[in-house]
């Protein structure tokens, strides 16, 4: 809905003589002020006040009415919520009322030392005398108003429409407002408050309900559902269904009609930028660069390798030369000869030589088979070394014994290594064999093989999942499950049972009234046992999981349609946006289907929001009953002219619904006619303006002296006469 506030400062204040009354429609939603006798109010704004702090200067200022958000960004509005002077439909906050009146009079162009015009201001039905007197005091004392009149806005609206010929002298005025809904019967042109009726449901509650429903349904977009936006949505899209149950059934069945009635609000959404794959030239360029880098690295590696080969060859030549020299030198001179070179004995030199040849061969990149041979050769030479072991113990000296023990140790380790190597080779052969068999089987009968694999996969996955479920034990459920938790008789697996047993025995073991757990050191071993149990538990189903992953990978290779079952956690909330797939356009759409007619329904059925009062159609019956008129004739006259007025009656379909509802409670055949006011929103002000411009209006006002002299009781009984 467009921004309807008009706050242009009027310039013609001085043109009006001081007998011209100022007419104020003080509503819970909007404040309208203008001159009597005119067609439209001069100044209109929302009846709220904010006191934000200016961001740079830090002073607290007052802002009245609703304003363009762009200007408000200079103020820190977080701590100041908009405040209204109303509590339900009664004014109670007179400081805020004063701010609003200040603003209103200021924009009307008021200048001079006081407001020198009579004021006609609207109030609610049966306004408490406290509120009325405070308002009169405010107007008289602070603004210097000469005379004041109070009137009910719905009555003014009815009189105005009566003048227009829409409704007759006797009738019913139904006015759903912002916070309340009133039904007032009119007899002979005057409202009879004895028969009036009020329910505390209004446009505010409809908007609030709508806002809550949307926030609960789309929690991710909650920030977008501001009060103003929701109000706009309500005014644009909500309607009253002629029969709620039927309409709801349409939507429940998902008929085409329901689809048509569902409106979709697309929130702004930018699709994520898909990076276009690099073009061909880009790819070629990158490949070339990589190639060059690879080439460079290879050259460097080559250079290093050749230098190392050279080194090794040199060493080898040196060692060979040494060996040759050794052969020439005699036995006794060996130690002294070798002392220069750094080797202790001939064997060392030989082993060093062998090692050098081996590394040389490796550096030159010869096949591994030769290396295996050389390994064996080394082992053989090691066997020779172990010759010492075959000599029995008693024949060796102490040193040799030590030597023997060391050799023993070496021997066992080398034997162990050999055995491990052998086992590995066997396993590999075995695996190769199995794979070959598998392949043969697959080639022979692909379909059957695939089926078998699938079956195996399903079985294994079920087993694994079941075990997982037992393990978690329902501990993953949300706060809704009040029962649950380990140790209440639910299935525990072996390890957890063992742990429980240990705990209980430790706790109750010693008995005899005193707990001496911990006095002995052995007690603490309990914890070691418990933690060990935990570890065992984890290893249990590992082989199964391994098997499972193997099968799933195999399936993925062979079968293009296989999708590995993703581990699903506990059920997630249906409306939650799953985080595993990219957000699409649909996630940013807000669908308004049932909410469109569910929200205005509360005007007819306040039980839906927990307010235990009658709805609009029932209120008409209550009002007629309260009037306790004797003849059916009067009642018929009332129902023949039912006027609905007020901002909340702009929902499409409200008149039909009201008529159907009233027909339900009236005797069969009675005339019912529901009429809508010519301008439901502004008619109250129009009526008041017309009233204030009548000649007899001054007789209906009361002056300051009246107020002070006549006292509160008189004020309570003060009512204006509407037919002038």
């Amino acid at each position: 809905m467009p921004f309807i506030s008009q706050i242009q400062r009027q310039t013609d204040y001085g043109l009006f003589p001081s007998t011209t009354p100022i007419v104020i429609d003080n509503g819970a939603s909007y404040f309208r002020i203008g001159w009597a006798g005119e067609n439209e109010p001069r100044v209109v704004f929302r009846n709220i006040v904010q006191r934000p702090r200016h961001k740079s200067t830090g002073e607290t200022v007052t802002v009245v009415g609703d304003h363009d958000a762009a200007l408000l960004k200079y103020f820190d509005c977080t701590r100041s919520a908009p405040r209204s002077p109303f509590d339900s439909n009664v004014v109670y906050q007179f400081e805020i009322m004063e701010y609003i009146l200040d603003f209103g009079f200021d924009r009307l162009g008021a200048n001079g030392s006081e407001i020198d015009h009579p004021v006609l201001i609207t109030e609610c039905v049966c306004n408490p005398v406290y509120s009325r007197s405070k308002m009169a005091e405010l107007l008289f004392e602070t603004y210097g108003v000469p005379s004041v009149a109070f009137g009910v806005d719905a009555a003014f609206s009815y009189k105005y429409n009566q003048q227009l010929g829409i409704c007759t002298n006797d009738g019913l005025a139904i006015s759903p407002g912002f916070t309340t809904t009133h039904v007032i019967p009119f007899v002979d042109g005057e409202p009879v408050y004895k028969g009036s009726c009020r329910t505390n449901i209004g446009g505010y509650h409809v908007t609030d309900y709508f806002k809550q429903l949307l926030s609960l349904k789309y929690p991710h977009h909650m920030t977008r559902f501001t009060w103003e936006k929701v109000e706009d949505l309500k005014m644009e899209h909500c309607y009253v269904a002629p029969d709620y149950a039927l309409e709801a059934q349409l939507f429940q069945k998902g008929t085409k009609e329901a689809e048509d009635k569902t409106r979709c609000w697309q929130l702004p959404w930018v699709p994520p930028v898909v990076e276009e794959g690099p073009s061909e030239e880009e790819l070629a360029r990158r490949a070339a660069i990589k190639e060059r880098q690879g080439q460079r690295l290879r050259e460097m590696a080559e250079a290093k390798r050749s230098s190392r080969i050279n080194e090794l060859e040199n060493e080898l030549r040196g060692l060979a030369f040494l060996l040759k020299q050794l052969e020439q030198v005699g036995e006794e001179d060996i130690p002294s000869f070798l002392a220069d070179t750094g080797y202790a004995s001939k064997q060392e030199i030989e082993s060093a030589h062998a090692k050098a040849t081996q590394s040389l061969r490796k550096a030159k990149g010869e096949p591994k088979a030769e290396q295996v041979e050389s390994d064996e050769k080394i082992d053989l030479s090691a066997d020779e070394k172990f010759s010492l072991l075959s000599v029995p113990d008693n024949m060796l000296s102490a040193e040799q014994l030590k030597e023997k023990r060391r050799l023993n140790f070496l021997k066992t380790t080398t034997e162990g290594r050999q055995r491990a190597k052998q086992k590995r080779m066997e396993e590999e052969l075995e695996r190769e064999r199995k794979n070959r068999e598998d392949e043969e089987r697959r080639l022979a009968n692909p379909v059957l093989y695939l089926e078998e694999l699938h079956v195996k996969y399903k079985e294994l996955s079920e087993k694994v999942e079941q075990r997982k479920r037992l393990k978690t034990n329902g501990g993953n459920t949300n706060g809704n499950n009040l029962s649950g938790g380990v140790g209440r008789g639910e299935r525990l697996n072996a390890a957890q049972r063992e742990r429980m047993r240990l705990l209980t025995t430790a706790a109750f073991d010693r008995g005899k009234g005193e707990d001496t757990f911990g006095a002995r050191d052995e007690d603490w071993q309990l914890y070691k046992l418990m933690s060990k149990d935990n570890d065992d538990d984890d290893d249990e189903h590992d082989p199964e999981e391994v098997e499972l992953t193997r099968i799933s990978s195999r399936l993925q290779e062979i079968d293009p349609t296989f999708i590995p079952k993703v581990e699903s956690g506990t059920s997630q909330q249906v409306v939650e946006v799953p985080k595993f797939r990219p957000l699409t356009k649909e996630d940013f759409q807000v669908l308004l289907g049932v909410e469109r007619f569910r929200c205005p329904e509360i005007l007819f059925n306040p039980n839906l929001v927990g307010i235990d009062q009658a709805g609009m159609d029932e209120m008409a019956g209550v009002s007629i009953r309260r009037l306790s008129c004797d003849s059916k004739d009067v009642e018929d006259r009332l129902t023949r002219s039912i006027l609905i007025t007020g901002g909340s009656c702009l929902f499409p379909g409200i008149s039909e619904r009201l008529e159907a509802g009233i027909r339900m409670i009236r005797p069969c055949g009675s005339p019912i006619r529901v009429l809508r006011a010519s301008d439901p929103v502004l008619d109250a002000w129009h009526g008041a303006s017309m009233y204030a411009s009548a000649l007899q209006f001054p007789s209906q006002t009361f002056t300051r002296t009246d107020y002070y002299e006549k006292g509160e009781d008189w004020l309570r009984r003060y009512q204006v006469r509407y037919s002038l």
Partner: protein
Amino acid sequence: MEPEVIEAELVLPTYFSFKKTQIYEKYPKGQSSARRFKHLKQIIQAENIQSYPPDEPNYVNIESPPSMHPSKRICDITGYEAPYHDPRTKLRYANAGVFKVIRSLPSEYVQRYLALRNAAVVLR
């Protein structure tokens, strides 16, 4: 103060010529206005309704009675007709699909749905 703010006259001036006493004189700073004024409940209490004749309309008199129509139960989540209600969460639901959703809702949402109907448990 930024120029466009001044031009739009967003801020309410503190002095008005047509007022006899300005607002800052009337309400000295410090005391919060919330405590200064009576709320509606207190206003009604202070009005002393019992001393007035009962058939005279006053603010409390004219309030509507509870509804006599059979109450319509609608599903809290979807808005359809709801013949069933969940004993654990006290929400009303229309069919099994909605029931599944209800059982998967976190407790905070359950309370908010109930608060819509004014049926939430309020711990004060």
